[in-house]
């Protein structure tokens, strides 16, 4: 269940974010995307998820894919309603039962908040809910944009552990955008670094954080 980007280009008005990017995000390892603000990390992730369309090129993947942003939208209703929502869709109906939702809530430390209105949560709590909502239906491809940006240190370790467990399952692809280089080091199997060069972006790929393997 890898994601393949073939000749992806994207520009916003006068700013070229990346040009003709080709790369394969493999399953079984954590693919971390790093880079300075505004280089196009979130845009690349959104293109991979299908939310945004590239100016040219194409993204191919098989299996179900989900994306969770850094400032997630909370649906009306409780924490429980939000995490249950994906399981109520036609596509997943019958795949999972209520106990999976409760388990997820428990694991994310949201037990005390499960009946609270999701819109009233703090930024970190909302991020946990978004993570639970993305993971609960067990998609084959998980795209996370700064998943631990507002989360306290004690929970970060737990979430990273959860992501590692997710990867242990067969045919699971994980792509994470992060600013936290320590986290990238802890998680990364493959590091993708977006750098600006002559008003164009270069996307470098390094495996196990050791040396440059591929350029563009």
């Amino acid at each position, binding site marked *: 269940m890898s994601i393949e980007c073939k000749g992806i280009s994207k520009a916003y008005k006068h700013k070229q974010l990346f040009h003709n990017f080709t790369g394969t995000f493999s399953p079984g390892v954590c693919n971390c995307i790093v880079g300075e603000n505004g280089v196009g990390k979130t845009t690349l992730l959104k293109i991979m*998820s*299908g*939310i945004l369309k590239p100016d040219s090129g194409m993204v191919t993947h098989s299996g*179900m*894919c*989900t*994306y*969770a942003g850094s400032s*997630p*939208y909370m*649906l*009306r209703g409780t924490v429980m309603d939000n995490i249950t*929502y*994906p399981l109520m*869709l*036609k*596509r*997943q109906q019958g795949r999972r039962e209520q106990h999976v939702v409760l388990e997820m809530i428990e694991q994310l430390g949201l037990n005390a908040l499960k009946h609270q209105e999701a*819109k009233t949560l703090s930024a970190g709590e909302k991020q946990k809910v978004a993570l639970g*909502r*993305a993971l609960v*239906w067990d*998609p084959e491809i998980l795209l996370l944009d700064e998943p631990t940006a507002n989360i306290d240190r004690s929970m970060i370790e737990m979430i990273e552990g959860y992501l590692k467990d997710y990867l242990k399952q067969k045919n699971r692809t994980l792509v994470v955008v992060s600013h936290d280089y320590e986290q990238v080091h802890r998680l990364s199997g493959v590091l993708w670094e977006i750098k600006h060069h002559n008003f164009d972006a270069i996307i470098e790929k390094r495996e196990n954080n050791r040396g440059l393997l591929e350029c563009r």
Partner: protein
Amino acid sequence: MDYIVEGIREAIWLIFSGDTEIFGIIVLSLFVSITATTLAVLIGVPLGFYTGIKQFPLKKLYGSVLYTAMGIPPVVIGLVVAILLSRRGPLGQYELLFTPQAMIIAQFCLVLPIVTGILFGTAKDKGREVLELAFTLGANRHESLKLLIKELNAAVLLAIMTAFGRAISEVGAVMLVGGNIRGSTRMMTTYIALNNSMGAYERSIAMAIVLLLISLIINAITQHMTGGKAYVD
């Protein structure tokens, strides 16, 4: 001060005495405003949603025009509709001027930008987020639309209530296109204006109390339907 107290006392008596003229006016006012609001909601809700979510050239200009239209003085709308419906106007052949239909048209023109504008603004800000979330969680087209309506239903309710409030309380447009004809196009607001100018305060106050009560009832219904929460968060 005495005439105010006397006015209120007589007004209450007028309401409970079952004055046929007053009740006829209330029924006509409700009929005209509810019809105009319903028509505006049927067109404005989908139009507001669609234009709010969809990206198209000159969207900013469209938004500016829409927001400006939300604040057009009723008298101006009344004047334009009156010109269009007058005997010499392009729609003169239908002989609609000084009829309840003309008042419905004028109120419809007044509240359509309000309904469209409120939903355009909400859908522009939140609609894309909701649809993106639905898409990333694997919802199909039908499920995405269902989620969008569910998430933005408070804004729809707000648009309906604002539009109806504006329609029922408006005086300039219905005065121009309806003519305030007794037993035919006399509305609550034009009735208040007329009686006030004639010094018949008790009748003006009686109708003002009814208008206030209608506003309170609408607000109570809205509060009940939204569970006392804010319309838009």
